[in-house]
């Protein structure tokens, strides 16, 4: 630490000076935590000697609740985990159950899932970047990125009726097809988004204050990132390239041409700037998916899994009974277990489902990406200053709903 040089003539009084460290609590209700996280710092002046993190303030019992409801009824619970990119969690859950049952959603449904997941990725990055900039003092970016987010939410509302919690994916596909004119509006939004995100990136990446506050702050090494189980943009900012959309593709991602941005330093600035690049790649994926959107059904043709069409239900006895059985007794996967993984905006979102053949899951274990990312946070803060807590905490994008489930 730099102790200032005292002017001539001033004597230090301290002979038997006793100093002690200060413990500061950044409590669960605090603006920089963006949710219900708690951090305690042991300070020597402004430098953090040790930090401790506590979670669990938003533990809503998702895993136990999922054991009490049918498989399709878990979709709303799954959506509320990572509440910034809601539709991706639900699609990932449906994909996990489909894998367990050994069925595959039709190509059109998979392409729609890709489009909505990339829109969710853009929404999540907008919230992360916007909220983090507010903590650093740059409020304008929050409004610009909020504009992008509102466009996405308006499209979700047209698609499913609700802005955030869409309840749109189903086991076997998606609940309904794209409405008329939606694709043209999406293309227009992608055009507008390019300008807005480009503006924010220009405002921020050459800004002296931003660079001073984020460059070299709380860096993470590759070994530490692997040891803690980091995935997603945080891992890619340390120099390790891992993206499940490229390495172990699903939903037809191998048909789209996109880059995986990788930064080298692993500090806060890299973790923030990588998200701008990821938003641009998501934009490209959406446009390619719209160009290559296949025709066909949006739900798999399996009467044990999806509800029959309404006019058949009203006119044919078999369809009515089928509808009744599915609603009252649910979908029954075979006995077994599966670990299914997708690349959510924060990293690898895994679902470990154990089924006992009944319509309710025996055990649902969620591997939240934020959990592994946040467990490295106390160690990251050692040696940093108090003001770095805000920048670093926002850069790893902790969503308390996913962290605590």
């Amino acid at each position, binding site marked *: 630490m730099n102790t200032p040089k005292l002017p001539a003539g001033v004597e230090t009084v301290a002979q038997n000076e006793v100093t002690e460290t200060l*413990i500061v609590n950044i409590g669960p209700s605090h603006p920089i935590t963006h949710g219900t996280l*708690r951090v*305690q*710092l*042991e300070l020597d002046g402004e430098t953090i000697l*040790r*930090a*401790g*993190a*506590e*979670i*669990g303030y938003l*533990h809503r*019992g998702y*895993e*136990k*609740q999922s054991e*009490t409801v049918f498989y399709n009824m878990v979709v709303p619970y799954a959506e509320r985990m990572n509440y910034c990119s809601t539709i991706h969690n639900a699609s990932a859950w449906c994909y996990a159950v489909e*894998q*367990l049952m*050994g069925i595959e959603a039709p190509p059109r449904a998979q392409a729609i899932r890709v489009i909505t997941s990339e829109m969710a990725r853009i929404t999540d990055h907008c919230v992360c970047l916007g909220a983090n900039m507010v903590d650093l003092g740059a409020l304008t970016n929050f409004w610009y990125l909020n504009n992008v987010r509102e466009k996405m939410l308006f499209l979700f509302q047209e698609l499913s009726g609700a802005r955030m919690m869409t309840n749109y994916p189903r086991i076997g596909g998606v609940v309904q097809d794209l409405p008329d004119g939606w694709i043209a509006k999406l293309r227009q939004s992608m055009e507008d988004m390019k300008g807005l995100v480009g503006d924010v990136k220009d405002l921020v990446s050459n800004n002296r204050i931003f660079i001073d506050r984020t460059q070299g702050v709380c860096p993470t090494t590759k070994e*530490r990132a*692997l*040891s*803690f*189980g980091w*995935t997603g943009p945080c891992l890619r900012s340390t120099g*390790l390239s*891992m993206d499940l959309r490229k*390495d*172990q593709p699903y939903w037809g991602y191998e048909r789209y041409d996109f880059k995986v941005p990788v930064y080298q330093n692993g500090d806060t600035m890299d973790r923030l700037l990588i998200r701008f690049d990821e938003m641009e790649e998501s934009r490209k994926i959406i446009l390619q998916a719209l160009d290559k959107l296949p025709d066909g059904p949006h739900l798999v043709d399996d009467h044990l899994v999806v509800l029959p069409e309404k006019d058949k239900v009203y006119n044919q006895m078999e369809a009515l009974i089928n509808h009744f059985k599915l609603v009252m007794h649910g979908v029954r996967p075979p006995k*077994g*277990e*599966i*670990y299914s993984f997708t690349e959510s905006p924060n990293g*690898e979102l*895994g679902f*470990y489902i*154990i089924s*006992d*053949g*009944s319509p309710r899951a*025996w*055990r649902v*274990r969620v*591997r939240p990406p934020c*959990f*592994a990312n946040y*467990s*490295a946070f*106390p*160690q990251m803060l050692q040696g940093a200053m108090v003001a770095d807590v805000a920048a670093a905490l926002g850069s790893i994008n902790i969503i308390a709903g996913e962290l*605590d*489930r």
Partner: protein
Amino acid sequence: MDQSQITDRLKARFGERILSTYAMCGQEAVTILPADLVEVLTFLRDEPELRFNMLMDVGGVDYLGYGGDGEDEDELRSHRFEIAYQMFSYDLRHRYRVKVAVKDDSVEVPSLWEIWRGANWMEREVYDMFGIRFTGHPNLRRILNHDDFVGHPLRKDYPITKRQKLSRPIDHLLTDKQEWA
């Protein structure tokens, strides 16, 4: 590497210590006893063709009352809990699952936090939800439920609507214990 090849490697190396294998939907797993856990996982990490260097997830399961439709699965009844370790290889991009059969909550499982730091919080969560203790863990306290909570919620004999209120804010110091080396 193929999942079945990994299983064969493990069976060749550990023989009788592999209690059972499992294969479904293209994914395979082995079940072992807690005493063999560290050896099996370090073998998976160090073997040059396997190189499982990332521990993705540690999840507990309670099998109390499983298989109620009459099928007799003896090996599932003999132990109540299982802990599933999802392993991932960053270099070779393959996955595997290792399951540890824990008879009941008196058995202690060795902690992996010295090898993989991420196991620290994940094992705390298994302790919080199931009550399984981990030897060598630096900070085995509850992580998701509050400290006055009695019981372990994800066990099958814990009723879901049994609420336990907290009447005071939690005020212990988090920097008391050294959580890392």
